[in-house]
């Protein structure tokens, strides 16, 4: 069965320092992977997606993620955190054979200290 595991429930960084949010996936085929962000009292917004093209995917707001099949990972990174990056981040895999059904990780809450 497909799944995603977000290794950290909470990550805290200082403004201007790098961000690393970890995600490992489990899938028997080449998956479609996504990162979504949820700011307080807001909906889920797509940050970026991997769909078997380039393994390094660039998203909005300076985020990027690298698909590593050998490590079954899809970690989200950003070189320099902003205060506005504070939010909850979800790693997501599309369910195989479905019409877009998504399987969510538990989420990682990112805090950014001034």
């Amino acid at each position, binding site marked *: 069965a497909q799944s995603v595991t977000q290794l950290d429930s909470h990550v805290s960084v200082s403004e201007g320092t790098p961000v690393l949010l970890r995600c490992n996936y489990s899938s028997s085929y080449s998956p*479609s992977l*996504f990162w*979504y962000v949820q700011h307080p*009292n*807001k*909906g*889920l*917004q*797509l940050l970026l*997606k991997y*769909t*078997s093209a380039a393994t390094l995917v660039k998203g909005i707001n300076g985020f990027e993620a690298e698909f590593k099949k050998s490590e079954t990972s899809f970690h989200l990174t950003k070189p320099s955190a902003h205060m506005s990056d504070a939010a909850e981040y*979800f790693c997501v895999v599309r*369910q195989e054979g*479905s*019409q*877009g*059904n*998504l*399987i*969510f*990780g*538990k*989420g990682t809450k990112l805090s950014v200290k001034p």
Partner: protein
Amino acid sequence: EPEVTQTPSHQVTQMGQEVILRCVPISNHLYFYWYRQILGQKVEFLVSFYNNEISEKSEIFDDQFSVERPDGSNFTLKIRSTKLEDSAMYFCASRKTSGGAGGELFFGEGSRLTVL
């Protein structure tokens, strides 16, 4: 920028009451979804809807739940007789394209349901 809108943003109801959550998907989208997130838990798929019928549903989506698109605009989720465990944030989403790679889901801001 087009967006998915949901109403109400928060609804409080008594156990056993019927609840209807409303969503207006993006106008040229073809696929519609409901997800829910119980506090402290994962976002879970409930149901997908295409061509005026349910295309897939999860185990959570039992006989107490129903969806419809009555007027080609609104997409509603009805819970016939709410239980305490239905308390959650319910997210509507829509998608333009058919299956395969890509085809981003656009989510609304959610409707928080509290069952007392």
